[in-house]
């Protein structure tokens, strides 16, 4: 009989303890809240970089970016890509190392290399990209790189690039050329040659 009442006392006691705990959490929600309102609030980004050395080789491999003005159209990154997500089309420039203002083509890269090719298409399908970073090593002009980390000065980090449509993940880096402009580059007029 006393066990019966002891049980009841125990039940009431433990239930009250549990209710006190939830009450305390409810009252201290301002302090204890763990939810971040994502687009407005964000977790701090990890500080570590993409690098070759062991200590800075971890990684936010966030997104590929191409400085198209530096690209010489050598196709080395396209060949290096294990999943073939980089597609490059080039057209031979009429004169090596000369600006073509008509298609906003610059003749020289920032390293001073004279460009022989006009890049008419440079697309990276980021939905296929496996973030292996293999395309960045062969690039002779260091114009394709992962954003952020050591490249923060060239392009700020960006790892939030979700889209509503998959085709929006195909990034176009080359300047838009109209069919007439392409035609003009491929079949230069006789006066230009002369």
């Amino acid at each position, binding site marked *: 009989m006393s066990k019966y009442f002891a049980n009841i006392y125990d039940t009431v006691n433990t239930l009250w303890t549990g*209710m006190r705990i*939830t009450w305390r959490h409810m009252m201290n929600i301002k302090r204890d*809240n763990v939810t971040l309102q994502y687009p407005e609030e964000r977790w701090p980004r990890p500080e570590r970089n993409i690098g070759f050395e062991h200590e800075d080789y971890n990684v936010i491999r966030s997104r590929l970016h191409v400085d198209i003005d530096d690209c010489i159209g050598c196709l080395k990154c396209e060949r290096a890509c294990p999943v073939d997500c980089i597609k490059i089309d080039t057209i031979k420039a009429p004169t090596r190392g000369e600006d073509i203002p008509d298609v906003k083509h610059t003749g020289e890269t920032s390293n001073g290399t004279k460009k022989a090719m006009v890049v008419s298409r440079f697309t990276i399908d980021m939905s296929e990209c496996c973030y292996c970073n293999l395309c960045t090593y062969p690039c002779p002009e260091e114009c394709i790189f992962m954003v952020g980390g050591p490249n923060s000065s060239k392009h700020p980090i960006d790892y939030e690039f979700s889209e509503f449509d998959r085709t929006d993940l195909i990034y176009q880096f080359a300047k838009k050329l109209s069919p007439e402009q392409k035609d003009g580059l491929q079949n230069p007029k006789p006066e230009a040659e002369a």
Partner: protein
Amino acid sequence: MTVDMLMDWFATIGDFPILSFLLAVVISGVPLFLVMALNAMVAVYVERKVSAFMMDRIGPMGQGPGLHAGKWGLLQTAADAVKLLVKEDTIPETSDKLLFKMAPFIIFIGAFLGLAAVPFSSVLQVADFNVGVFYIIAVGSIGVIGIVMAGWASNNKWSLYGAMRSAAQIISYEIPAGLSIIIPIMMAGTMNLQEMIHFQEGNVWGILPNWIIFNNPFTFIAFFIFFISAVAETNRTPFDIPEAESELVAGWMTEYSGFRWAVFFLSEYANMLVVSGLAVAGFLGGWQSPIPGMFDTGAWGLFWFMSKLIFLIFVMMWFRWTFPRLRVDQLMHVCWKVFIPIAMFNIFGVGIWKLIFG
């Protein structure tokens, strides 16, 4: 009460007994339905927030333009309601279609009828029965028919399990609830809810308001037994074994979707309102002010009643987000071996108390 007043008023205009009765019922029934709908909307929002805060989350939020749920997620329940209403209303191929379609409305009728006798203030009460307490207990039992119907008609083993559990649970817990609500009836000597509330005027023990819960130790215990049994009767956690998401998917509502499911939801929250209303009227002084003689005129009655009601509903939510679900055997143990003996002892104790002090 509203119905009677409206009918008296219609009688002064002309002699159309049936028409005036129908009009009076519609005029007092529509606001009652609105109260139910509003209660469900607000209670769902509050429940989301309370549960979130107790779990250190912040619940539905939204700020700024676009598909956000309004400031602090205030539009969340509106969005939920729209979603439920435009959802496809599926009926299983092998179900008993007639019973399947009827069940939600039977449950709804039980909750709606119960709400008709809840005394929101000294005048705001749809029907002032002289057997109010008995009436609420009686129509409260209609719901279980709907639940068993829904479970059986779904032709689904989870639903049937849920329905059987629900029947066992509700029928069991009506006994301690009934035995406990007898105590206010014994104290006040009436089943009329208004007279019962009028009985609770004034002071007791010098400072406390003369609510039945404070009258003597037996009524104090009886309130808790009644309230916990009421939580069990509304099938809420920790007594939600008929729904038991982790075991039975959603119990007897597994096969329901869209509007029919929304009706279940509405009825669940309306049931909370009804049982809390009965607990407030029977034990917590109804629309009486907690400070006797102050703030007890006019609209204050409605204010005090709603405050007590909201507090009890909050406590139900507090229970829900604190306690884990009981097993079936534990549920039956609590009911038959703990609540019923204590409730009977309470009746005995109150009888002796009334003989000595009353």
